[in-house]
């Protein structure tokens, strides 16, 4: 059964320097507060995995937590680029950032393989693109029945996956609903998992389009109301679109970013 912990305690015990860490949540339920706690605790040399690195990954990269980024789309949705990510890739500030770059279909299937206990997944993808030349974690596999050549991607097996969900019960069973993205796969693919939730309830009333992760496959649950802001938590709060727009200015300049980080994350 998952242990109910405080956020600082959960991050301290589950996320270690050098770990491969996946924070998932596809535009919805992004575990922003947990990511900022990782910054606060000064983790280093992380391999950060996420299909859609956005604001909180820009913060993690700008704060120097990451050595490598495994991703398929890195940007500020509806706004533009991630300036801290760009600065790290183009200028190596504050540290060089290796990129392992896939398509969404490839990343999703890498999580599926990890959750399924398989070393790889097969898909129709990448053929003819320059990703084939630049992404080392790609190969081909031949169908033993038809001879057709398809693309293979290796399983993703994070040391720890962090997600945010609407709620959990006291046994640590976790319930999320709405757009649930790739979170179930990301948790099941990982060795350890930390789930931040809006609230803990006595009973998880079944809901439409809900995914339940039983407590026995989750390592720890931390109650963090608003833990997904500025993204949204269906049924709890909406997306703060202004914050996404404002991030563009904050993140453009190193000093502005560093000041923002000290005031809003490091001291908090």
């Amino acid at each position, binding site marked *: 059964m998952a242990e109910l912990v405080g956020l600082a305690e959960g991050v301290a015990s589950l996320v270690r320097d050098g770990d491969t860490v996946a924070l998932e949540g596809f*535009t919805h339920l992004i575990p922003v507060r947990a990511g900022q706690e990782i910054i606060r605790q000064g983790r280093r040399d992380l391999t950060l995995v996420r299909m859609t690195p956005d604001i909180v990954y820009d913060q993690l990269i700008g704060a120097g937590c990451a050595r490598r980024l495994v991703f398929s789309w890195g940007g500020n949705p509806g706004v533009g680029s991630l300036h801290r990510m760009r600065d790290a890739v*183009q200028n190596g500030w504050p540290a060089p950032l290796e990129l392992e770059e896939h398509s*969404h279909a490839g990343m*999703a299937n890498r999580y599926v393989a990890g959750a399924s206990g398989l070393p790889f997944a097969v898909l*129709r993808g990448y053929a*003819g*693109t320059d990703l084939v030349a630049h992404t080392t974690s790609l190969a081909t596999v031949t169908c033993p029945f038809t001879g057709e050549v398809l693309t293979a991607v290796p399983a993703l097996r994070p040391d720890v996956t962090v997600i945010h969900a609407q709620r959990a019960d006291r046994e640590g069973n976790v319930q999320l609903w709405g757009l649930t*993205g790739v979170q179930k796969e990301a948790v099941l693919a990982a060795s350890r998992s930390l789930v931040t939730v809006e609230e803990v309830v006595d009973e998880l009333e079944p809901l439409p389009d809900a995914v339940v992760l039983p407590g026995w496959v989750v390592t720890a649950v931390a109650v963090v109301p608003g833990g997904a802001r500025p993204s949204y938590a269906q049924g709890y709060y909406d997306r703060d679109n202004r914050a996404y727009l404002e991030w563009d200015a904050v993140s453009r300049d190193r000093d502005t970013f560093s000041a923002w980080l000290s005031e809003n994350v490091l001291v908090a």
Partner: protein
Amino acid sequence: MTYTAEEMMTVTAARALAGRTSCFVGIGLPSTAANLARRLHAPGLVLIYESGAIGAKPSRLPLSIGDGELAETADAVVTVPEVFNYWLQPGRIDVGFLSAAQLDRFGNLNTTTIGADYRNPVVRLPGAGGAPEIAASCREVFLMLRHSRRAFVERVDFVTSVGYGDGPGHRERLGLRGRGPVLLVTDIGVLEPDPASCELTLTKIHPGRTAAEARAATGWELAVSGTLAETEPPTDEELDVLRRLVKGSEP
């Protein structure tokens, strides 16, 4: 009624969705065009967002592909792996909408890096997202991009998504099942692939624009159709519905 170049682009793309069943939508102009089509001539058009909303019917333009209203109005909400594996990959979806930072005469797209060296780019772009498989697997691909020599290049710096590759037969050799880009809507006109050469060719010009402008804003020797037609300007109804849609969607 007067209208902007962007409105001309959106209306042109929306018109092209007539008769299509399903459309894989991103955010921005494509989403506006698809939602406009649903309000005009294609009320039954099925909108599929990579975030997992199948058959979304947003009342306002989503601000992100994961906008909560997409899930709340969808016929079915599925996981991200399912969208790509069960819905996109088998070629169930009629039209995929894409844009890019760069494209070439064969409709190959770059959303990854600007500059000769991938490891040391001049500009780092967001990356592939769902585009490579949308370009590969949708039955047809529609492109929307403003005309400029910076974007319409002889050779893209990085092939993120394949159009017609290096020309006729290349998609077949790669085993790509969709037909590829059949339409490119720009602020100057409409380009369609030449049936023989697969080269994007100017086939329609928007009212008040000229082929010369298009040539000047294209980084390769732009082919122009011998039977260059003029795009119908947006009707008052089209503009009215579009403007109400955009206005009603402001934060």
